[in-house]
């Protein structure tokens, strides 16, 4: 980081925070603090929804994911447009007409207090852990750039985000999201252009795409079905639909974004914008990772992208042999790559096939050397299951991007975190105050009291998130970790809302028992099977609905009568 980078970084961050706080003036009542007085236009909500989901993790980890595994992660998002359409047609009008602050408040109107409380607690557990991971990612950035311990940088990031969220409320969060997404789009475009410009002069953009394809990094669609395969078109379409239904329909961190809309149509448009834009955006980010991979076909990448760990294993007696093997493998791969480009230019198909085979043999040797280095890290007292996926893009940015652009990319990562974390902490505080504090401790207090309680809850959840951030480094690829954690809880929540929207005869007790059974089924699958986490949501949802229906029809006398439970509940429009 040079002076110009620091200027770009600090200017970007200060302007985002200042603008958000400026737009949040007047957030002194609880409906303004938590729901922006329901005045937000669709484009602000749309970008805020996108920003809350697209945290720094998206930027750092997705590019690394593409570098090591290709672009097939994009299939994970195939279910998103389907989920958005379903939510727009069902949940959005229901939540708006029920005039609720949280999605779980709706559950008490439909079922009973215990179902609402269980759903709230599930959300608080899950989102609290995710908030920690969201803070951890940029803390990682600071740690790499400044050479500070991750614990220190995690605390600094957490403190900044909490201060900003406590002061601004949801309006500050939303408007800073808008600005931040603009910076993200700019940063993405500049990153891609820069990595292409950095390729050798003899390698055109077409050659780079050809090489990425030959290296298996452009595998955007896999049609083969496999229960244990995380990313294929089927798990994306079916598992992904359930996951995104849960995320956008039952997770307060997203529901709260579109509850701020000035009308039902504005809320729907904000979600549909994401249905259209999210997949191309993820494709674009993954493509940047694939291009970084191509760049490193010509420029030798470090044996490990995490420099501190590389330094740690440097003194070991086994290291020189591993480093030498890696060096040889890279030289062979580079030669094979250049020959491949040449054969491609000549249109010599037989030569292309030969060079691809040579390339793959060298790549295998590189992978083996990197695996051996990772084992050395473990033997040297490093973390078990060491992975440097999250450091790949950062390492590239800090080493090769020109002055000024490094600052811009780092600003993107910081801004993304501030926004995503503040959204999460804000929603955690909202659920704590609305669904627990107001429901069980202070049922009627002044508006000022609830605003103060919301600020205190924000402080608490910020501290909780910082504590859980330390867990992040043990989870390999962060983008996957966040979704795994979500999948452990979302299925039950989704099942609960499916019952609320679609099964009028089901009562609160049946739903409550169904949710417990759903959680048990998900944890069983997580602990004792190899089923991909993308299916947990579908599994949990099916178990919740099946159990609740069985109780309803086998023991119809239990719980509150359906008529009184659904009294006053708005129906889908």
């Amino acid at each position: 980081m040079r002076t110009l980078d620091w200027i770009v970084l600090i200017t970007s961050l200060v302007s985002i925070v200042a603008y958000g706080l400026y737009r949040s003036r007047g957030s002194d009542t609880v409906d303004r603090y938590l729901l922006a007085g329901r005045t937000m236009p669709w484009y602000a909500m749309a970008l805020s929804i996108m920003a809350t989901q697209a945290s720094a993790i998206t930027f750092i980890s997705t590019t690394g994911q593409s570098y090591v595994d290709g672009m097939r992660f994009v299939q994970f998002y195939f279910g998103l447009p389907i989920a958005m359409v379903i939510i727009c047609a069902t949940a959005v009008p229901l939540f708006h007409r029920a005039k609720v602050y949280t999605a779980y408040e709706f559950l008490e109107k439909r079922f009973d207090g215990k179902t609402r409380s269980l759903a709230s607690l599930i959300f608080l557990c899950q989102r609290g852990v995710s908030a920690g991971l969201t803070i951890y990612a940029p803390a990682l950035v600071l740690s790499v750039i400044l050479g500070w311990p991750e614990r220190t940088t995690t605390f600094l990031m957490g403190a900044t985000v909490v201060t900003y969220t406590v002061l601004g409320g949801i309006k500050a969060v939303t408007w800073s999201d808008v600005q931040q997404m603009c910076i993200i789009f700019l940063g993405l475009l500049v990153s891609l252009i820069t990595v292409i410009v950095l390729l050798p002069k003899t390698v055109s953009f077409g050659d780079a795409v050809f090489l990425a394809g030959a290296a298996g990094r452009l595998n955007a669609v896999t049609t083969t079905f496999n229960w244990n395969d995380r990313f294929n078109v089927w798990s994306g379409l079916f598992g992904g639909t359930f996951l995104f239904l849960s995320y956008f329909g039952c997770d307060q961190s997203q529901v709260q974004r579109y509850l701020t809309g000035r009308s039902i149509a504005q809320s729907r448009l904000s979600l549909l914008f994401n249905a259209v834009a999210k997949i191309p955006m993820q494709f674009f980010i993954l493509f940047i990772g694939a291009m970084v991979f191509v760049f490193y076909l010509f420029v030798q990448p470090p044996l490990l992208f995490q420099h501190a760990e590389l330094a740690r294993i440097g003194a070991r007696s086994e290291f020189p042999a591993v480093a030498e093997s890696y060096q040889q493998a890279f030289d062979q791969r580079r030669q094979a790559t250049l020959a491949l480009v040449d054969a491609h230019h000549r249109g010599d198909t037989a030569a292309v096939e030969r060079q691809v085979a040579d390339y793959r043999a060298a790549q295998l040797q590189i992978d083996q050397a990197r695996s051996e280095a990772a084992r050395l890290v473990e033997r040297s007292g490093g973390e078990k299951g060491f992975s440097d996926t999250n450091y790949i893009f950062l390492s590239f940015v800090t080493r090769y991007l020109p002055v000024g652009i490094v600052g811009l990319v780092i600003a993107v990562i910081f801004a993304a975190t501030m926004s995503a974390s503040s959204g999460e902490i804000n929603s955690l505080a909202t659920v704590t105050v609305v669904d627990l504090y107001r429901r069980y401790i202070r049922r009627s207090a002044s508006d000022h009291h609830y605003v103060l309680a919301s600020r205190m809850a924000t402080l608490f959840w910020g501290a909780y998130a910082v504590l859980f951030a330390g867990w992040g480094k043990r989870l390999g690829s962060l983008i996957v970790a966040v979704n795994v954690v979500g999948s452990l809880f979302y299925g039950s929540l989704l099942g609960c809302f499916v019952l609320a929207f679609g099964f009028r005869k089901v009562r609160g007790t049946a739903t409550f028992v169904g949710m417990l059974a759903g959680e048990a089924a998900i944890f069983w699958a997580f602990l004792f099977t190899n089923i991909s986490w993308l299916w947990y949501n579908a599994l949990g949802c099916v178990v919740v609905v099946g159990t609740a229906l069985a109780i309803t029809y086998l023991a119809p006398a239990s719980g509150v009568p359906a008529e009184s439970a659904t009294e006053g509940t708005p129906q889908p429009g």
Partner: protein
Amino acid sequence: MPQLPQAPDEPPPFLRTWRRVYTVILIYLGALIAAFYLFTRAYR
């Protein structure tokens, strides 16, 4: 806490009905998957 105001319902700004908007979104998804599939095949 104050009672929240009733949010008005409005038609979409284009295509006249929400059902049509949803249909267009799903067609778009199909086209996107088809395009990615062709992309994968082209550079396999």
